[in-house]
């Protein structure tokens, strides 16, 4: 049987406040299992424990109880992090370094050779659309550009697992779509992706499974089609049907005990925005 990429077993995290007057329970008996090559979305409102979960998986903080294993190895082993790339939420990185210098620094930390570093930097700058901005200091980057360089540093050492904390926060829809496409292409190459996000539409579009955290508890978890299916409703999307045909169909439906909930399908606002801006670019 294949080892799970990430296995979180009965993890509880309690933060003690200064002088231990109060204890904050950030996570309660969390269990997660993410298979290799899967895209898993961790959803939840602010303070639900998403970032704490990611930090525990990365070994940045230790769980109060429970265990975390990455491809079968304990998460606290430093070697485990060779398999993980991480993009923190709202990261600014070293503002005094250029984009290329930032990637070189992270490549060195990851143990890449000089020659590999050079080719990898060029490749990643192109991948995240920063080929022309590689020599500019990060202090001149927009939030979207910072997010892209953050994604590049997370990918510098070809990680098997990518952990993304709000990867498309502060990015315009087109940039967000690019990152979304990159996530899908990484999955096609076998990368396991764990992402936390507030943008539910995106999560819905890219994730295989999602988990919903609230006040440190995993309330629901599963495949999207299972979670989102409405048992007593059926959806057909029909193209180029004549109004007469649709009226007839509606009457036929009404003759049974069923009813039509919505006749005209709608696109999402994001899809509409992208279509309008892409048309304008052409």
């Amino acid at each position: 049987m294949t080892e799970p990429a990430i296995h979180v077993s009965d993890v509880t995290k309690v933060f003690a406040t200064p002088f231990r007057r109060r204890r904050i329970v950030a996570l309660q008996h969390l269990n997660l299992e993410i298979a290799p090559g899967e895209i898993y979305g961790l959803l939840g409102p602010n303070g639900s424990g998403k970032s704490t979960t990611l930090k525990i998986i990365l070994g940045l903080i230790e769980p109060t109880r429970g265990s975390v294993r990455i491809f079968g190895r304990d998460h606290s082993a430093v070697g485990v992090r060779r398999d993980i790339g991480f993009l923190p939420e709202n990261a600014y990185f070293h503002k005094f370094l250029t984009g290329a210098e930032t990637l070189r620094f992270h490549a060195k930390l990851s143990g890449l050779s000089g020659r590999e570093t050079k080719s990898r930097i060029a490749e990643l700058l192109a991948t995240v659309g920063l080929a022309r901005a590689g020599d500019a200091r990060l202090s001149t980057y927009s939030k979207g550009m910072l997010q892209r360089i953050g994604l590049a540093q997370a990918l510098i050492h070809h990680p098997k697992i990518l952990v993304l904390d709000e990867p498309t926060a502060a990015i315009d829809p087109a940039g967000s779509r690019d990152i979304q496409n990159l996530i899908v292409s990484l999955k096609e190459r076998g990368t396991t992706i764990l992402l936390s996000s507030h943008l539910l539409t995106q999560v819905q579009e890219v994730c295989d499974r999602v988990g919903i955290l609230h006040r440190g508890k995993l309330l629901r978890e599963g495949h999207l089609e299972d979670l989102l299916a409405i048992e007593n409703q059926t959806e057909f999307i029909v193209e180029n049907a004549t109004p007469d045909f649709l009226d007839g169909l509606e009457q036929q439906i009404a003759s049974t005990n069923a009813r039509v909930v919505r006749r005209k399908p709608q696109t999402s606002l994001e899809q509409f925005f992208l279509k309008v801006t892409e048309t304008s670019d052409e």
Partner: protein
Amino acid sequence: MSSSLGRIAAIGRTTFTELARLRVFYVLVLFALVLIISSSFLARISLQQELQVTKDIALGAINFFLSMLAIVATAQLLPRDLEDRVIYSVLAKPVRRFEYMLGKFFGVLGLLVISLVAMSILCLAVIHLREEAAVRETMQQLSQSPSDELDHALVAVHQAGANRDLILALLLTLTKAAVLVSLTLCVSSFATSNIFTISAMAMVYLVGHLESIARDYWLHQRAAGWLARTFLAVVAFFFPDLQAFNLSDQIIAASSLSNLMLLKLLGLGAIYIVGYIVIAIAIFSQREL
């Protein structure tokens, strides 16, 4: 092992770049340089005294600004990395926390070495020029005197000028600054802001310069029992004896520092540095980020 050194070097290099690209530190070094140059104009007494006062002011300026640089530069490293969330992307890589701390230490040390070299070159140049002027004036003044008297006066001028002890004083200034870097790292490993770290280090700096006087006074009292000695030992650990690394008095007195004394001082500095760094790593390793 080599990859560990590579990671420490990478963090050290980035820390150095970070500090070198902050213009505020150039202002500090520039201010010290101005003080060193102006020291040659401040002293207008006798020839030998003039040289000694120039050395004293220049050494004092280097000492003070290098110490300030050590504290201020180190205090903002960890809070900045936490604020910018750089620390998460760094420690999510296969980087051990001791590598991160050592990288920070060596990065600041690199900056201090370069600052010290810049200030020392200027300091030695100023002293050399003053020494040459003093030699010329001495030869002019004693041109009619017996050669023995002239030789004696010239030896005195050279003794008061740039000599081995001046170089040793600069070396010990660097040692003191390195002690301050390691202690500042230690404080910032548990501090929640750089203001707390700088305030705590200002106190350490003050106490560290005064404690030798207090200790001498206390230990020379007959009442100094084991309790007082234990207390002094604890104080001596948490507040390093910074005055011990200050050789201005010897320099002014033109008295030579023995090799044994130099080794003792370097050893003391090394013990402080290693001790504080070990504590800093131990605290930082337990810190929840």
